């Protein structure tokens, strides 16, 4: 039997969730015995080369590229997991959601106290992703199967969840592990 395949990505996130993933430490060695990695920043595979069993999504969607990638993941992964607060609720990037996007761009590129842009150049190259009106949590863009809370999710929790999914065993989720308040 071939190994289950995992893919991961970071959308509008800070890579903190991926760092926490690496914090499973020596269990990484156990993990690569159990699974194969496909598209992921961990191995730098840029495009899906296979249908995956599990997709871990860090971050929400703040631009059109995020949406595109998230949809790609949905197409290519059997199980999709919102991995950390930003994927689940938009997190810190979503703090802009109450401010009109016009004001955000103006402050970032024109009027901010640390901004020097005398020629008033605005990022409008066609190659660039387009900015969305607000930051969307992943489950508002595609169907998500699981939510893994935390900022970032605790390394033990990540390990336990992957372990349970891969080996198809029940998982214990004591209150302390998923309570963040």
């Amino acid at each position, binding site marked *: 039997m071939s190994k289950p395949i995992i893919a991961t990505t970071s959308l509008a996130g800070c890579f903190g969730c991926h760092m926490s993933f690496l914090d499973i430490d020596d269990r990484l060695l156990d993990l690569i015995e159990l699974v194969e990695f496909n598209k992921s920043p961990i191995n730098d595979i840029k495009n899906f080369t296979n249908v995956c069993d599990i997709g871990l999504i860090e971050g929400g969607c703040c631009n059109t590229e995020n949406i595109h990638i998230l949809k790609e993941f949905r197409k290519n992964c059997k199980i999709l997991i919102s991995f950390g607060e930003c994927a689940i609720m938009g997190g810190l990037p979503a703090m802009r959601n109450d401010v*009109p996007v016009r004001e955000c761009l103006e402050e970032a590129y024109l009027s901010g106290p640390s901004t020097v842009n005398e020629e008033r150049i605005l990022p409008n190259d066609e190659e660039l992703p387009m900015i969305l009106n607000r930051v969307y949590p992943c489950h508002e863009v595609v*169907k998500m199967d699981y939510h893994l809370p935390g900022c970032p999710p605790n390394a033990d929790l990540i390990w336990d969840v992957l372990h349970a999914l891969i080996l198809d065993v029940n998982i214990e989720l004591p209150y302390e592990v998923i309570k963040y308040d």
Partner: protein
Amino acid sequence: MIENKIQKILDKFNRDKTRLMDILLHIQSEIGYIPQTLIQPIADGIDLSAADVLQTISFYHFFTLKPRGKYTIYLNNSIVAYMMGREKVAKVFEEECGCKFGEVTEDGLIGLFDTACIGMSDQEPAALINGKVFTNITTFRAREIIRDMKQGRKVEEMFATTFGDGKNASPLIRTIVRNRMKRTGPVLNMSYKAGNTLLKQVAQMTPKEVINEVKLSHLRGRGGAGFPTGLKWEFCRRASGEKKFVFCNADEGEPGTFKDRVILTEKPEMLFEGMTIAGYAIGAKEGILYLRYEYMYLKKYLEDVLDRLRKNNQLGPNTANIKGFDFDIRIQFGAGAYVCGEESALIESSEGKRGEPRNRPPFPVEKGYLDYPTVVNNVETLCSVVRIIQNGGDWYRSLGTEESTGTKVLSVSGDCRYAGIYELEWGFTVSDILEMAGAENTLAVQVGGPSGALIGPDDFNRTLCYSDLATGGSFIIFNESRDILRDVVMNFTEFFIDESCGSCVPCRNIPTLLKHKLEKILQGHGTEKDITDIKEWGNMMQINRCGLGHTAANPVLTSLKNFRHLYEDKIQKTVEFDSGIDLAEAVAESCEFVDRIPKF
């Protein structure tokens, strides 16, 4: 100049920080708003931090840090106002003023603002203009009102109709508000003789006998929660405390409720007598009537009634000639917050703070106002007490049903011929009331206001009582021309979003999420999953701290329960997931700003 005025106001309230509400109300009525520069001097004067003062100001709808115009129009945005043509009226106000709602005209003359139900659901659209109530506003009247304002007329000169019926026309009220009493019973009956019960009967009874009589009557709280009144009083009497307090909850913020307004207008003596009896029963010397800001137009009148009662020995030293029973009542105004109808929030507000419900226990009967044992009763409950003492608990129990004794005053509004106040014994069915009110082609009834239940024809044979359809009195009728989801459920959900105090996470967030779900379904992007989400998320509201939080999802949940087909008709049956996101719309603003044509 202003500094002096502030110091005078602070002195008037003995620089007591627990009177911050009164201090702010006075400053605002003096200046029209509360200038930012005064926050520090107020805070210094009453030994609070500026942040404390600011958080109280920011909590209440009617407190403002910016001028809201020489004339301030607060146009009601409750459901019944919309049903009666609010939108057209609002449009005329905006056109005539040249500004939008939420703004003030450039010359600072007129401010247009929304406000939640002002207790006039039987005479909508209605507005508060500089504290005066304007009812049944038409587009024509709206034009006239603005014209009068531009000519600088006094607000009371703008009434274009005769004063209302009953005491509404009395010199100290002079309002065009109408009572519309359609059916009276023990509470609203005109045969009441002020003070008789207190002076002749209560004076001969011990407090314990008073409590026993109330217990015998099986009277339950009329604000909606239905807690046994006698038991509440007994708990408070037994609680230890140097002082005790009686509060009357006249915050009446539940949209569609206006019965307390009528009782306060026609039977204030009865209410104050009930408070005095409660004070005697529990051993309190001070009663506080917490009156919603919207009813400020009754202030002079009610204060005059209190003065008269003091002169007649029905208040003041040795009240009712009972030695050592020195009972008095003062009026505490709120400043626009639905949640202050919750008893512990009402107490917080009376102490000058944000109206956030407290954690319980301890209950107010043990630790209430200023941490002393406190009884909080609804207007109607206290009035019923007077009748119970007068005629006996047994008599009261003979009214209504076995477990819901006595009568209930209902506020009936919406699509019916005879909107108004109905005092009925418990046990009437919804159909009975619809018939009495002259309602035809009724599609749905909201029983108990937004926090109650939306029911359809299948439930019209149900009865009003604590074990079936309990209600605080709001009864809003919708006929077949109404769009239940788009108009009714959406309006109520927006109401709860505005009125959440923000303390508990589910109450702060879930109503907004439910609104988004509802919008998605109405736009045709809904799926079965959205319906299950609504149900699951709505049930999470039970972990909120107060009754408001528990019920804030009810408009969505009860409409889903009783009108599920309305939701199901609008969702996509073959699609498992729909984001509902229109990508072109989502990028439009950012692309426009950076001068880029969106391409996908």
